[in-house]
């Protein structure tokens, strides 16, 4: 009986151990990422928990009232994405200044986070969508809503002098039939965060990080052979066509927009590069096709990845999670793809198409994106303005001591070259889903298909959607 009892207790203890073995593992941040074509950058708040508080609020300046004929007694609703509570002071102060500049307008602000898109879809369906909306350019939200006729065409309504404030490449992003539907807001830079210790173990110099995407396979092979680690590279799962265009120099659709062409030799070569890396076992397969930017960032923050492409604002995440790694951190510009274009915009502000107060709404969207407001924002988190005028502020010419701010003096030059070179893709979400499955069929499984076959099949399926 004693033996039986002992065995029972032992069984119970072992079952309990198995049951509880996962309870000590950490949980990731739930903040979703907004991605750029080649790499990824999160919304400003995703890493700004340690950002310093804003200085004294700016005084209102009548010169900031650049939108004419603002409606009297306008009450407009403004939604932002992932900015509260970190930037409550900044947003509220800017709204207060706006209301002094345009005294006939009242603004109601709400911040939405993980459910932003679901909330916005529901609001549009219910007919109570906000007048002014913070939309992600990098995720393609502007073109998505604009193509459904839900946003206000700004090209016809905004004075030319106001359009000229912004970098031309940013003003011309996410065009639908050649028309713009967004005021460019805060921008990010694509950088590679580098774990110097793992690079040293592999005998690599962070300063010699590949300048172009072609150099990644060899780099990852060296890291695997000499440091025993694999690369954390993430495909932009939500917008693979854009990644093909920027990285592979691929022309995704014919000029008349009637036939997809992303099975060209350029596209096959682009996919083959990733196929070869997966075959060689030099990349983390889970990170490669995850939708969650945090998966790779978390591995990097834990010191288990040699490099990770993200925005400099997320260096603060590394700093707060792993101070030891932060002290051993280097950065390099993200490698260029075959398109030669460094990147595209991050965040924008759009106006609802059927708003009762179009001028007041445009005024608010423009106000948040004007040089003065943007410089204030950049001072509290490592995001960058969308206009040349803002970069003339002495803040951007001062050398920064922290690594996360080290790109500040170069940011204006880089962002001025940003451009959206992806043509309008009809039924974009469906096409992206088809491309994702095609890429997975070439990368994974017991019998992966060839890159050419995967893309040819995908083009056939995507073309069927256009009929």
């Amino acid at each position, binding site marked *: 009986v004693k033996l039986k*009892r002992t065995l*029972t*207790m032992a*069984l*119970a203890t072992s*079952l*309990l151990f*198995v*049951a*509880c*073995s*996962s*309870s000590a*593992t*950490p*949980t*990731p941040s739930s903040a979703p990422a907004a991605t750029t074509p080649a790499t990824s950058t999160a919304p400003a708040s995703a890493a700004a928990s340690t950002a310093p508080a804003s200085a004294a609020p700016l005084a209102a300046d009548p010169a900031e009232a650049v939108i004419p004929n603002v409606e009297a007694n306008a009450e407009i609703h403004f939604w932002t994405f992932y900015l509260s509570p970190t930037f409550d002071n900044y947003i509220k102060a800017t709204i207060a200044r706006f209301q002094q500049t345009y005294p006939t307008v009242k603004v109601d602000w709400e911040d939405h986070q993980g459910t932003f898109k*679901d909330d916005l*879809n*529901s609001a*549009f*369906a219910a007919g109570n969508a906000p007048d002014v909306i913070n939309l992600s350019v990098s995720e393609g939200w502007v073109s998505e*809503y604009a193509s*459904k006729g*839900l946003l206000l065409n700004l090209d016809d309504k905004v004075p030319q002098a106001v359009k000229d404030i912004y970098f031309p490449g940013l003003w011309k992003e996410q065009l639908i039939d050649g028309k713009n539907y967004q005021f460019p807001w805060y921008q990010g830079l694509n950088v590679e965060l580098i774990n110097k210790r793992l690079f040293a173990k592999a005998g690599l110099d962070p300063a010699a990080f590949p300048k172009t995407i072609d150099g990644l396979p060899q780099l990852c092979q060296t890291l695997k052979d000499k440091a025993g680690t*694999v690369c954390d590279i993430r495909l932009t*799962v939500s917008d693979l066509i854009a990644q093909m265009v920027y990285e592979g120099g691929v022309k995704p659709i014919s000029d008349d927009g009637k036939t997809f062409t992303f099975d060209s030799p350029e596209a096959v070569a682009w996919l083959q590069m990733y196929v070869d890396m997966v075959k060689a*076992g030099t990349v*983390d*397969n*889970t990170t*490669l*096709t*995850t*939708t*969650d930017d945090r*998966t790779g960032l978390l*591995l990097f923050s*834990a010191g*288990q990845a040699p490099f990770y492409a993200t925005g400099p604002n997320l260096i603060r995440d590394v700093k707060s999670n792993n101070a030891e790694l932060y002290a051993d951190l280097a950065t390099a510009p993200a490698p260029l793809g075959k398109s030669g274009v460094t990147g595209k915009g991050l965040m924008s502000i759009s106006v609802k198409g059927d708003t009762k107060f179009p001028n007041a709404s445009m005024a608010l969207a423009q106000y948040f994106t004007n040089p003065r407001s943007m410089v204030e924002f950049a001072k509290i988190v490592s995001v960058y303005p969308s206009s040349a005028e803002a970069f003339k502020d002495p803040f951007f010419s001062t050398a920064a001591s922290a690594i996360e701010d080290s790109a500040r003096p170069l940011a204006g030059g880089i962002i001025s070259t940003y451009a959206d070179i992806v043509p309008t893709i009809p039924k974009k*979400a*469906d096409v992206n*889903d088809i491309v*994702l*499955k095609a890429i*997975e*069929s070439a*990368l*994974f*499984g*017991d019998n992966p298909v060839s890159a050419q076959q995967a893309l040819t099949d995908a083009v056939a399926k995507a073309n069927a959607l256009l009929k």
Partner: protein
Amino acid sequence: MTRRFRATPYLFLLPAVALIGVFVVYPIIAVVYYSFTDYDIVRPPVWVGFDNYVQLFADKTFWLALTHSFIYLIVTPILIILSIALAIVVNRKLRGIHIFRALYFVPAVSGSIAIGLSWRFLFDRTGFINSVLQSLGIIHDPIQWLSTPSLVLPIAMLLTIWAGIGYYSVIFLAGLQNIPEELYDAALIDGCNDLQKHWHVSLPGLRPQIVFVGVISSLAALKVFDEIYVLTGTTGGVLDSGVTMVFYLWRQAFRLEHAGYAAAIAITLLAITLVFSMVNVRLLERQEADR
């Protein structure tokens, strides 16, 4: 003799009827309607007749999802066997056994998302499982568990079983404690060993609980979503290796914004679960008749 109409009982019923009407009946009718439309949530639905259903039956991913959902039903017998075994183990009068009973129940009261995330980290390239296997010298390079198509569904099923055992074993434990001790004494006198004792006494005594657990766990398995969503990072796994009916429904509705098509999937799923519910009712009726 004429009966006088009294409004009072109907007035008492009205709030409940109104709530059910708004939150149950109307949504069901709306989903049926949307299943015959092309609807992207933000623009008004457009009537397309049976197009969504025609498309559904030609959709390979739908059939794959349906297959995965049926494969997922394997968790039901495994859950029943393991839960009964655990209930028998913790039914013994041992010092501190109440603590074990409470601890086994912890996954049942933990959030499924939290549990799923914990498991995702367990099976990461640098996670606990690979670390143990590497430290024991069983593997050299880490296994990329969650990006290996053939492993995604089994890992999700393992998670469901692990998270469900505690809850279902409590049901079986209650059933075991209702079985008269005299039956076990009689079995011992008849020469039964421990295994035979449970085979001939415990299992027949647990029949109502087995039917109940079988029905609710199979319905839950058909509707599995959380485990897949969290483990696969919202993609459904590479090559749709973890896509189940409800996950596919979610992806169509909220990722691809095909709410009309998703409604057609929902109606099909409703038909399948209705069949399961009817089997359930038949089993319960037969059980009542046997008593």
